[in-house]
């Protein structure tokens, strides 16, 4: 009972702050300044080996995008959902939707290119400006322990290995 109440209150809080931060970026920056993320001294780095015109791209978002026929992200657990959805490169934009209660995605639903620019990337590929577009992946941001462990040890490495198998050269990541 207590946990239920705690979970429900947390979700309400995240939903409210997410909506406020969507409207007031200055407040979001204050929150970001106080937020303790995992921190690192070193940076992994893979230089680009191909020119844009030959490079095969994928998108990865944490904005909760998924195909309408895929199960939505879990918004019941306040600690988040560390699973991912594969979004095939040729998915019609009309087949995509967003499940993520902690930010205002009204604008992104009107024009998904502002969050998940799959249509723009396909146009660039069709015009030979980039080499190609591979299958893309979507997560729901806002992942806390113990799910953070699952993301870092299982789901994100699984996505990385799919991208590798699919011979992706570069990935553009976009947040909620």
């Amino acid at each position, binding site marked *: 009972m207590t946990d239920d109440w705690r979970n429900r209150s947390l979700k309400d809080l995240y939903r409210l702050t*997410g909506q406020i*931060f*969507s*409207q*007031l*970026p200055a407040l*979001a*920056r204050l929150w*970001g300044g106080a*937020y*303790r*993320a*995992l921190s*690192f001294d*070193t*940076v*992994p*780095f*893979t*230089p*680009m080996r191909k020119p*844009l015109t030959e490079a095969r*791209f994928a998108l*990865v978002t*944490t*904005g909760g995008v998924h195909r309408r026929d895929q199960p939505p992200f879990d918004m019941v657990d306040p600690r988040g959902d560390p699973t991912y959805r594969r979004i095939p490169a040729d998915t019609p934009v009309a087949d995509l939707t967003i499940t993520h209660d902690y*930010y205002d995605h*009204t*604008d*992104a639903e*009107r*024009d998904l*290119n*502002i*969050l998940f*620019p799959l249509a*723009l990337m396909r146009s*660039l590929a069709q*015009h030979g400006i*980039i080499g190609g577009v591979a299958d893309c992946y979507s*997560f729901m*941001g806002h992942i806390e322990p113990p799910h953070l462990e699952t*993301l*870092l040890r299982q789901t*994100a*490495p699984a*996505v*990385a*290995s799919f*991208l*590798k198998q699919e011979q*992706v*050269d*570069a*990935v*553009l*990541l*976009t*947040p*909620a």
Partner: protein
Amino acid sequence: MGLIARIIEDAGISTICIVSLKPIAEQVRPPRTLHLAWPFGHPLGEPGNRAQQMTVLYAALHSLYFAEPGEILEPGWRWRRETYTIPAGWEV
């Protein structure tokens, strides 16, 4: 998101992250970051503004070739009151 970028980069794939919160990128240190202090849910800008979206995409994709490891690039574009044109050669 930066954590996912680090894991993908570790697997041998170049990554570029667009972020709206610089302090988090400073802690997580994604391989390459394009920081735009814009509202959540709008990493490439406003709906219907193709020139703005293409400008951001152009900056992100080209930064893959010149950003230093861990660099946070800051073009400084304001959320509104900015005039964008589609980058040359990107009129698709």
